[in-house]
């Protein structure tokens, strides 16, 4: 499974919507319910699922899903 597929699964579960399709250019604005509050829940879900850790700056710094996926890839490789 690619990182994007894994991420899609997590995002669908956190925002409770099976129809969500993620592309690298998807932003929080494109997903209903993805606001700054629920973003923390998403970060926690990614951290537990993929066993990685974000720093605060990292967690709040992504501009779109592509950047998030690239970052996860980099973390998983190390």
């Amino acid at each position, binding site marked *: 499974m690619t990182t994007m597929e894994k991420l899609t699964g997590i995002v669908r579960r956190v925002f409770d919507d099976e129809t969500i399709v993620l592309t690298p250019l998807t932003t929080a604005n494109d997903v209903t319910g993805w606001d700054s509050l629920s973003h923390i829940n998403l970060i*926690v879900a990614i*951290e537990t699922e993929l066993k990685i850790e974000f720093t*605060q700056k990292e*967690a709040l710094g992504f501009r779109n899903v592509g950047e998030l996926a690239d970052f996860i890839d980099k973390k998983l490789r190390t």
Partner: protein
Amino acid sequence: MSFSSPLFLFLFLPITLALYFVVRGRAKVFVALAASMLFYLWSNPVYFIPIAGLIVLNYFLGKRLETQRGKGNRARNLLIVSVLVNIALLIFFKLFASLGADLLTQLGKPDDTWLAAFPLGLSYITFQVISYLTDVHSEKCPSEKNFFSFALYILIFPRIIAGPITAYRDIRDQLAHPRPTVTDAAAGIRRFILGLAKKILIADQIARIVDPVFRMTVPNLDPASAWLAILAFSLQLFFDFSGYTDMAIGLGQAMGFKFAENFNFPYLAKSLSDFWRRWHMSLVSWFREYVFFRLEFTRRKSRFLRQQTNILIVFILTGLWHGFSFTFLIWGALHGLVLGLEMTKFGKWMKKTWPPLQHFYTLFIVVIGWVFFRSPNVTYAFTYLKAMFVPSFSKPLLADISPIATPSWMALAIGVVLCFPLNSLISGKLVVRLQTMRPGSITGFTVAKEALCILIFIVSIFFVVSSTYQAFIYMQF
């Protein structure tokens, strides 16, 4: 010196603005800074020295934080120490302001009790400095290299009394080169006049109903009097603070600075979380960015009512920011608890219920909160609440409130009307209709609006000169 004092309106402001518009380029920064220093010295001469020290300290801390970027823990520790030093200073002065007078008397220096005052604007200054240092650390903006621009950011007189708290990163360019346009200046002065009217013609008139009630040693009131007084205070507080804010933002705009907005028709809120998106917005967004999300992130692994606990912490801090007293603590905790409740199923249910009920519920919580906010102590607040809810049949209605003068009744009525967005309604729909009916009449409409503004100014001035001075409520925080 208050914005509504004759000294400010007829001497300080005209001279400052005239000089400010005569000089060009960077010289505007120096005129603004000199005027702001004079404003501070005039209002609070003793505390100018600690404030000047605070500016120098944070100027160097900002530069240091920038050079330490990317050095991991060292940079982080420096940020933590800098923020703690600023908070410690704020706490010291808050405590000294409330306990200092007693302390000096006990030390046998009763003549020096005047020293136990609070440095003008320190609560607002501290929060701005913290946002500046944090933003420099997290690379959201570079540090300010020019000392005068930095000093102006802290001291700028339109915003020194009570905010709005504006992040450095948002007005950075304006601090380097203020470029006020004629349109900005006109719009700013218009907004200043309307703010002055809100303060003088509405808030201060309503204060005549509210103040005698809260000067009583024990609030033995009949329910109607108790309700009238606290509802009147709700309006007074809104017009006092939003009037001040309009004056601050208006002056800022006239001088080419864009300060953060603070109000968006708060009493039309449909939930308490909605209320906090409309009331003292600059303070709320500060707490959101620099406290709430940081708490959310650090405590993200805790599962038990995480967001509710974080909200409660934030609102207890918001309460204490207003002053170290149990009344503010309870006020903050009340808001924090109800906001936490709104994050549960109750909030979802509330959202779908009958809209008038949503408004009623929100106003009810807000008004109960104001009882604590306004009361001199907790016992007083609870006695007051009892008076609101326990009917006393022996007394006639409104027996315990002193006779209300006509201007105060009028101010109450106008105040209620102005809680609704009339301006956008009028200039929206009416202008469109006028334009389609008679294209030429729009000039007349604009002239009428300007004339009304001037009239409001003249009436306000009349009241400024003839009445006693009332300080802005939010100045004390």
